[in-house]
């Protein structure tokens, strides 16, 4: 690409900005220079959990601040509300993968496979609760049209002498089908 079209491209970028941004040069920190993806932190749930479900998804760059602000404000309540259900489900936290930033993971832990369905039923019965609303808001941030991936982990020791049958999707998330990526 020649210099003139390069310059035109930058000018378009400047003009397309919603608001005028002051010119800024930032030193890139050393630890962010590599494109090596750091492993996500392990779930913060206890060893008593039998099932860990991981939602892996991307958050749109423009939603970063809103999403992280939402988590800052809501995570403690969300975790406490899930715990209060007393059905063996717990919220294990949401983590961003650095240095890329947009990959995020949310961890859910359950004391048993049945607890997953119990959690789903409990949520379905409380559609006006704060927990349901916060859950919906969390899901709404997920740029799920192309990025949502689900991983289900069973505590290996509990699989002794059993053959586990995995569900294709997380039944909890089924509740919110069609609500993803729609801000509430």
């Amino acid at each position, binding site marked *: 690409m020649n*210099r003139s079209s*390069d310059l035109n491209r930058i*000018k378009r*970028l*400047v003009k397309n900005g919603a608001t005028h*941004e002051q*010119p800024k*040069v930032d030193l890139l920190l050393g630890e962010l220079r590599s494109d090596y993806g750091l492993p996500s932190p392990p779930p913060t749930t206890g060893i008593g959990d039998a099932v860990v479900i991981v939602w892996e998804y991307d958050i749109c760059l423009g939603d970063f601040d809103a999403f992280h602000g939402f988590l800052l404000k809501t995570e403690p309540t969300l975790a406490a509300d899930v715990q209060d259900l007393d059905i063996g489900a717990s919220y294990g936290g949401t983590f961003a993968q650095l240095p890329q930033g947009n990959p995020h993971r949310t961890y859910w832990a359950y004391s048993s496979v049945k607890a997953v369905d119990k959690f789903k039923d409990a949520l379905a019965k409380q559609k006006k609760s704060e927990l349901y609303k916060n859950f919906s808001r969390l899901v709404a941030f997920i740029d799920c049209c192309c990025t949502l991936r689900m991983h289900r982990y069973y505590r290996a020791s509990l699989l002794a002498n059993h053959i586990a049958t995995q569900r294709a999707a997380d039944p909890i998330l089924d509740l919110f089908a069609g609500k993803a990526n729609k801000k509430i």
Partner: protein
Amino acid sequence: MYSPSGFYRKTSALKVRPVPEMGFCLVFTPAKPRLFTLNPTAWLVLELCDGRSGRAVERSYADTLDLERPDAAVRAEVRGILEDLERKEIVERCGKPLVQRGTPRTEMKK
């Protein structure tokens, strides 16, 4: 110190890697190995540093912002960023104007 009549250009061996999809560009200064990110307006000023004067940079910058002529705010922005770029050894001043091949005629006239 900024000089409207000084001529600005990128430092030699400077590496510029545009990341337009993320809305910034990365710049590496090999002489002092450091990596910087430039937002679109800073990136624009950097690209305008092709040997033209500080005043010409102000005019082209104002033109991009659809201003007829650089106002005080634009001049302050350009002065601030050129001083910063020079301090970080991303641009430097050269003794005489450089006219690069491919510079649009309209910009040269200004």
